[in-house]
C-alpha cells in the first residue's frame, strides 16, 4: 500500500547529464509527490537558488550586514557571500563552493541541502547528488547498482541494492520482473548490447516505481536467482541461461559468435594451478616477534608446506612467488599468479599489533570503491582479427583486475574461515575487506591470510612451530578442495 502513496522515480543516465554541465533539475521525492528544483551551473558546479529552497522547505531568508540568514522554526543558518563556509545552528561547516549571486538570486551549492539544511530540518533530507535526487522523509529509495555481463553462452545480471532491500523475481511469457520492497528506486540501468536472434535479454527498463522489467530475447531458456548480503547491500544475482536449440537453429553471423567469446579471467570449473605468495622476504622482514621470529621466515616455511600438501592432494601445479629469502616487488608477486593463469592466489602473512594481547588469524579480501568499479567497467574495445572482421575484447585496468572476482574471493574466504576455525585461533573479525595491493591485480579468486600475531608471545611460539604450521596447512588444503567442489558444482550454469 505504501507504494501507492508516492510517485516513484527512476533516474536514468543522470551522470551523463551532469558530466555535460547541463542545468537540469534536482528531483525531489516525498510522500505527497515529486517536484523539481532547478539547478544552475556556476563555475562548473551545481547550485540551487536559495529562494527555491525557501519555497520548498518553508525557510525564511534574510540579508543583512553582508550576511545571509536562513531561518527554519527558530533554527538558523548563516552564510557569508563568496565564502564556502556556513554556520549551522552555531556549528561551522564547510561547503564545496562559496555562496554566489547568479541571475539576480542568491545560489548555494547543492551540497548545502545535505550539509546545512538537513541538520536543522524536521524531515529527513537525503541528497543523492550523483543521481540528482533528493529524498524527503523516511522513504525507502534504495540505490541500485546493476551489471549485465555475458557468462559462457548465457548472461548474468547482478543488482546490488543499498541499503539492504528484499526483492521478488518473476517471469511471465517474454518478460521478467524484479520487484523491490521500496517506495522508489535510484538506479542507472546499464545498456544491453546483444540484439536480434543472439539476445538473451533485449532491454531492461523501469516498469513502475519499485519494479524493473527485463524484456527477454529469443535465446532465453530459463533463469536462476539468488540473493546474498554483502556489507550493507543485498546482492541479487540472476543467471540467465541460453537456449542451445535456438543457438543451433539460428547460428550467429561469423566471426565468431558473441556468446562464445572467451571472457577475461572468468572463473574456471576446476583448480589446475595455485600460486602461493610467501609475504615479505629479503631486506623486508615484515613484522618481528619479541623472540626474533620474523614474518618473512614463517611465511616461506608455511608456503613450502602448503605446496607439498596441495600437490599431493589436488595434483595441482603449485607455484611459489619466492623460493628463498629474497625481496620480491608486490606487482611481481601478483604477476606470477596472472602469468601462470592461476585458479587461486593465496598470500600468506603474519600480523603485528601494538597491543601484545591481540591474537588470531584473519582472512582478507580486496576492497574496491564505487569509483574503482566505474573505472573497471570500461566499454569493450573492438579490435580487428586475422582473416577479416572484428571482435570485442574486455579491457580491465591492471590494478582493478580483482574486481570481477571479489564474489568468488569472498566465497573462498568463507570456506577458509570455516576450515580454519576449528584448528587455529581466529581473530575477532575473521574475514575483512581492505585495499591490499597484492590482491587488487590478481585476475582470479584471491585472499590474503594473516596467520596470527608475532607480537603475541604465545602466537609467536605457535607460528614458528611445526604443530601450528601443519594444522594451518591442512585447513587451507581442505578449504581449497571444498572451493574446487563449489566451482565444479557452479560450472554448469557458467560454462
Amino acid at each position, binding site marked *: 500500500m505504501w507504494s501507492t502513496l508516492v510517485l516513484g522515480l527512476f533516474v536514468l543516465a543522470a551522470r551523463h547529464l551532469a558530466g555535460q554541465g547541463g542545468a537540469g533539475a534536482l528531483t525531489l521525492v516525498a510522500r505527497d509527490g515529486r517536484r523539481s528544483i532547478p539547478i544552475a551551473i556556476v563555475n562548473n558546479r551545481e547550485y540551487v537558488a536559495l529562494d527555491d529552497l525557501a519555497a520548498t522547505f518553508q525557510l525564511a531568508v534574510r540579508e543583512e550586514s553582508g550576511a545571509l540568514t536562513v531561518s527554519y522554526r527558530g533554527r538558523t543558518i548563516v552564510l557569508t557571500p563568496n565564502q564556502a563556509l556556513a554556520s549551522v545552528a552555531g556549528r*561551522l561547516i564547510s561547503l564545496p563552493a562559496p555562496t554566489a549571486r547568479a541571475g539576480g538570486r542568491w545560489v548555494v551549492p547543492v551540497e548545502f541541502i545535505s550539509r546545512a539544511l538537513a541538520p536543522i530540518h524536521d524531515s529527513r533530507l537525503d541528497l543523492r547528488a550523483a543521481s540528482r535526487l533528493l529524498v524527503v522523509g523516511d522513504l525507502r529509495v534504495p540505490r541500485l547498482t546493476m551489471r549485465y555481463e555475458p557468462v559462457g553462452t548465457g548472461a548474468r545480471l547482478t543488482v546490488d541494492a543499498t541499503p539492504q532491500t528484499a526483492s521478488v523475481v518473476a517471469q511471465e511469457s517474454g518478460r521478467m520482473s524484479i520487484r523491490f520492497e521500496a517506495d522508489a528506486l535510484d538506479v542507472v540501468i546499464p545498456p544491453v548490447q546483444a540484439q536480434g536472434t543472439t539476445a538473451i535479454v533485449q532491454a531492461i527498463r523501469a516498469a513502475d516505481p519499485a519494479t524493473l522489467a527485463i524484456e527477454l530475447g529469443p535465446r532465453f531458456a530459463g533463469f536462476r536467482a539468488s540473493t546474498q548480503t554483502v556489507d550493507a547491500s543485498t546482492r541479487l544475482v540472476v543467471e540467465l541461461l541460453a537456449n542451445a536449440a535456438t543457438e543451433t537453429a539460428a547460428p550467429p553471423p561469423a566471426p565468431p559468435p558473441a556468446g562464445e567469446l572467451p571472457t577475461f579471467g572468468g572463473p574456471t570449473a576446476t583448480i589446475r594451478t595455485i600460486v602461493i605468495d610467501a609475504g615479505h622476504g629479503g631486506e623486508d622482514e615484515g613484522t618481528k616477534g619479541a623472540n626474533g621470529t620474523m*614474518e618473512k621466515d614463517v611465511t616461506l616455511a608455511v608456503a613450502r608446506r602448503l605446496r607439498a600438501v596441495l600437490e599431493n592432494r589436488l595434483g595441482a601445479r603449485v607455484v611459489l612467488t619466492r623460493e628463498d629469502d629474497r625481496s620480491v616487488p608486490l606487482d611481481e608477486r601478483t604477476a606470477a599468479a596472472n602469468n601462470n593463469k592461476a585458479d587461486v592466489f593465496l598470500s600468506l602473512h603474519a600480523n603485528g599489533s601494538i597491543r601484545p594481547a591481540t591474537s588470531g588469524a584473519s582472512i582478507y579480501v580486496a576492497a574496491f570503491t564505487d569509483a574503482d568499479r566505474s573505472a573497471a567497467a570500461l566499454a569493450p574495445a573492438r579490435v580487428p582479427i586475422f582473416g577479416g572482421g572484428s571482435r570485442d575484447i574486455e579491457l580491465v585496468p591492471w590494478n582493478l583486475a580483482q574486481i570481477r572476482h571479489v564474489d568468488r574471493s569472498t566465497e573462498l574466504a568463507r570456506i577458509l574461515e570455516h576450515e580454519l576455525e576449528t584448528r587455529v585461533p581466529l581473530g*575477532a573479525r575473521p574475514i575483512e575487506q581492505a585495499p591490499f595491493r597484492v590482491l587488487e591485480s590478481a585476475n582470479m579468486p584471491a585472499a590474503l591470510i594473516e596467520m596470527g600475531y608475532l607480537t603475541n608471545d604465545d602466537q609467536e611460539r605457535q607460528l614458528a612451530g611445526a604443530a601450528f604450521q601443519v594444522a594451518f596447512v591442512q585447513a587451507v588444503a581442505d578449504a581449497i578442495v571444498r572451493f574446487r567442489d563449489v566451482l565444479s558444482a557452479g560450472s554448469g550454469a557458467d560454462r
Partner: protein
Amino acid sequence: MNQRRTAGVIVLTALAANLAWVLFVGLPQWYGTPPQSAVAAAAPVAPAATGRKIKARLFYVGEDGSTLVGVEQDVLYGEGAVAQAKAIIEAQLAAPAEPWVSAVPPGTTLRALFIARGEAFVDLGGELMRALPGGSLNEMLTIYTLVDALTVNLPAVNAVQLLVEGKEVETLAGHIDLRRPLAQSLALVAEPTGPTDGR
C-alpha cells in the same frame, strides 16, 4: 649653539633611558612569565588554550588492539578547510593523553596538506615509514586513523591520499595500496570501551 647642543643631548639621554627601561623592565613585566597561580590555572587546557577551538573526533587504538576508537577532542580552529584539516592532522599526530595510544608512530610530522576536488593530500615525514611496526593491522590502523580523522570531521573531504616526503608511495609497509585516495572506512572503528573522553 651650545644651548641647542645641550638640549639635544638631554633629549637623546632621556630617549635612551626610556628605551632601556622598556627593554629591561617593561617588556619582561608585560610579556614575562605570569605568576605561579596563573600557570596552574592554565595547565589543564594547555597548550591550545589561547586559540579558538572546535570539537573533532580523533582516533586511537582500542583496548583490543585491532580497532580504532573515536574520541571527541578540542582542536584548534582553522580558517577554511585546508587550515582546519591541518589543525586536525596536527592534533591527531600529537602524543595523546593517557591512556590513549595512537596507531601513528610517535614523531610523525606533517609536511604539507592541500585539498583538491574533495580529496585531501596529506604529506607526511619519512619517519612514518621508518618507525611503522610491521603487520598489516598496524598499517591499516595508521592509515585509517588519518583518513577517518579528516573524512569524519570535514565534510569537504571525501577521500585522503597519503604522501611521504612529498611523493606518492605504493604502501607504507607492504600491504595497503596508497596509489590512490582512500575513502572513509569505519570498518575498523569500534564503539569506545575505554575511559570516557574529555581530556
